[in-house]
């Protein structure tokens, strides 16, 4: 047993910390949040130049081929600084899908480009009937000539507005078992018949509505087996979810530190408000949530990297705990911060939005508890 980071991980952590401090001040995060596409191509290129976009991609395709825990260490720091980038969509979700099921030709043409940050990919899965069950994938792909035509709507698609290509989950066959009959397609980001619209609201990331109106896709753009897409997604979602949790853990760590610092400096009734036990209680809640999230997340990552049994359960536990932890943590932080907490200049809301957006991403706590219930044969 050894719960410490390896020297290589410590080094990555400190590089990431310095990078975030230098390149991603709060003013920048707010600017990205409020304007334009929500990310900076220049910054994205710098991240790619450090090799971050290819962390999981095997060396033969121009990546670093590192473990999930390594990436998680980077994600903690990215999450701490709310570093805006399409990294999760492109270099985690889509890269893992291609690594898992892409044809040699698909891998060769896309993975090196993803690793270099030259191509941005995004995953279009969820629909207006939002959720992470196979039965909720209804966008239809019908055979037409040698290829397919896609029609339907995808909703809450992260990063689609800046994606060069999309991986789209579509239904190619209706059946008794909703897990059968889903196929993954590579679709050009500017395909004819595809319209995109960024959703507005109290959201921590740019999410899109995508309407597919008879979008034509050739047969060589199918990823993996026809009708076999769901199994690929399930495999990829396990490590991706654990990595996402690490991002959330990093964010909550930062929220804790802000909250403690504010409790120590903000004066009311002639004393720092951190002297009041009611205020302290909020901090204690954040600490407890944070540590529960941290250790369930790293246990899941360890299980993934070392191929232990019980990965599925460990990931579900981590996401259920971490979603709740980040959401509750920001709530308690707002209680301590009161007025200043709702100031856009102060920026706590950026964490709050992130926590609430990621709460549902890849499944909310109810979804994951349901999974565990089924693993426990309830």
């Amino acid at each position, binding site marked *: *047993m*050894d*719960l*410490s*980071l390896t020297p290589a991980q410590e080094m990555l952590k400190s590089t990431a910390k310095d990078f975030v401090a230098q390149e991603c001040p709060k003013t920048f995060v707010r600017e990205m949040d409020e304007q334009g596409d929500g990310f900076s191509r220049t910054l994205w290129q710098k991240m790619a130049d450090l090799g971050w976009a290819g962390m999981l991609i095997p060396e033969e395709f121009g990546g670093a081929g590192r473990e999930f*825990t390594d990436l998680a260490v980077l994600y903690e720091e990215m999450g701490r600084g709310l570093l805006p980038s399409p990294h999760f969509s492109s270099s985690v979700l889509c890269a893992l899908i291609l690594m898992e099921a892409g044809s040699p030709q698909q891998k060769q043409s896309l993975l090196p480009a993803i690793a270099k940050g030259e191509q941005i990919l995004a995953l279009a899965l969820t629909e207006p009937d939002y959720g992470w069950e196979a039965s909720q994938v209804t966008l239809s792909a019908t055979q037409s000539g040698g290829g397919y035509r896609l029609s339907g709507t995808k909703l809450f698609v992260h990063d689609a507005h800046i994606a060069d290509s999309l991986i789209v989950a579509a239904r190619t066959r209706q059946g008794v078992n909703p897990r059968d009959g889903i196929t993954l397609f590579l679709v050009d980001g500017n395909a004819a018949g595809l319209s995109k619209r960024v959703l507005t609201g109290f959201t921590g990331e740019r999410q899109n509505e995508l309407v597919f109106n008879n979008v034509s896709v050739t047969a060589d753009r199918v990823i993996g087996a026809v009708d076999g897409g769901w199994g690929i997604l399930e495999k990829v979602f396990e490590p991706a979810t654990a990595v996402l949790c690490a991002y959330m853990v990093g964010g909550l*760590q930062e929220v*804790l*530190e802000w*909250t*403690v*610092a504010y*409790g*120590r400096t903000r004066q009311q009734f002639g*004393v*720092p408000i*951190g*002297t009041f*036990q009611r*205020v*302290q*209680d909020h*901090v*204690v809640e954040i*600490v*407890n949530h*944070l*540590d*529960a999230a*941290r*250790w*369930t997340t*790293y*246990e899941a*990552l*360890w*299980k993934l990297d*070392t191929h*232990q049994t019980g990965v599925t359960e460990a990931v579900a*536990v981590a996401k*259920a*705990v971490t979603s709740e932890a980040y959401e509750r943590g920001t709530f308690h932080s707002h209680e301590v911060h009161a007025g200043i907490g709702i100031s856009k200049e102060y920026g706590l809301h950026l964490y709050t939005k992130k926590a609430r957006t990621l709460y549902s991403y890849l499944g909310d706590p*109810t979804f994951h*508890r*349901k999974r*565990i*219930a089924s693993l*426990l*044969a*309830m």
Partner: protein
Amino acid sequence: MDFAQTYTAEQETFRKEVQQWLDANLPPNLEIPPTFEDYSDELYRMGRDFRRKLGEKGWHAPTWPKDIGGGGLTTDHAIVIGEELSKRKIPTVPDAFGLCAPAISAWGTDEMKRDILPRMLRGEIIVWQCFTEPEAGSDLASLKMRAVKDGDDYVISGQKIFVGYKFGADYLYTLAVTDQTAPRHQNISAFLVPADAPGVDIQSLELIAGGGKRTIFYDDVRVPATLRIGDEGKGWWVAQTTLELEHGGTGRVGARESLIDRIIGYAKGHTAGGQPATKDPQAQQTLVDLYIGSHIGRLFNLRNYWMRTSGRKFVHEGSENSLFGKTYAPKLAAKVLDVLGPYALLSDTHYGPLKGEVENQQREATSTHPGGTPEIQRVIIARRMGLSRTPQEMQGSRDVAGTSTH
């Protein structure tokens, strides 16, 4: 990172030795009963006899030096012994020496270390920690018990409450005020009071939980000064030797607290609304939430165990672990009521779930105070985060919040 408890070849060899010894020496039927009420005098005697045997072998206090009654073994060995004992659910006495032995070792007289300490470590004698008083609970430093110097003796008077155990003790590890005029914390001394000294009156309490805790009246109990632990007026610091351990700092490895697993198993066979209770979506969410909670509890213990055995400095982790358990138990009790309804309250031999274990938990969950209430744990965590009750204390505390980030 590596979350796995792996064993060396030496440990596995030693495990065989422990198993063989237990097979040969463990009396049949010596097993923790499902509820405390079922804990008979006979069972207790068997447990004590067995503990003495364990002590002769050096396995009662495996990591303590051999010449003072320990086993002279490494932590690796202690882990194996602990695991094998817990597998066989052997009844033990809580705090038989756990909290007092370190205090004697650090502050006690040579005579105590020569005589009493080895007997404690060998499992021959039982010591109760007697700190709490009717008017001194969380605010332990406000305790009132008096110890007045009289020649070579002290004469002790006052009352302790919620201490000890259903079965008897040999010594009472007692805190008392020796200087009525000294400032708070500097007025207290620690003593080992023989439980059979004239004037000691140990009474039962009618309690719903807590393993038969007692109240003890000390009526002019005469104790030789040689039984004082540490210098006069240093009792507060003697007690502090043990409090960090009591605040969850030890940690442990091993399986999760498995009561929730047994409850889930039971609920599968329990009919509610014409179907197994676990088929109800809300009950499923409730039970899985508790299942996850027990998993988090295991991870906190594992982390603290790793921190302790790898010599890392504790910040808030001891109290966090303690608070987690103290929050989990009442939550479990409340939520089980949602799933099993009034059955959860039955010890009835026919209708009571899990031989009364669930009913027992309903009662035990009301007792979250031993070793410091949840509120006290919160105060400690906040302090370790850099937030204290007064601006002055806050200045002295840490200026950066930190959690155990590896």
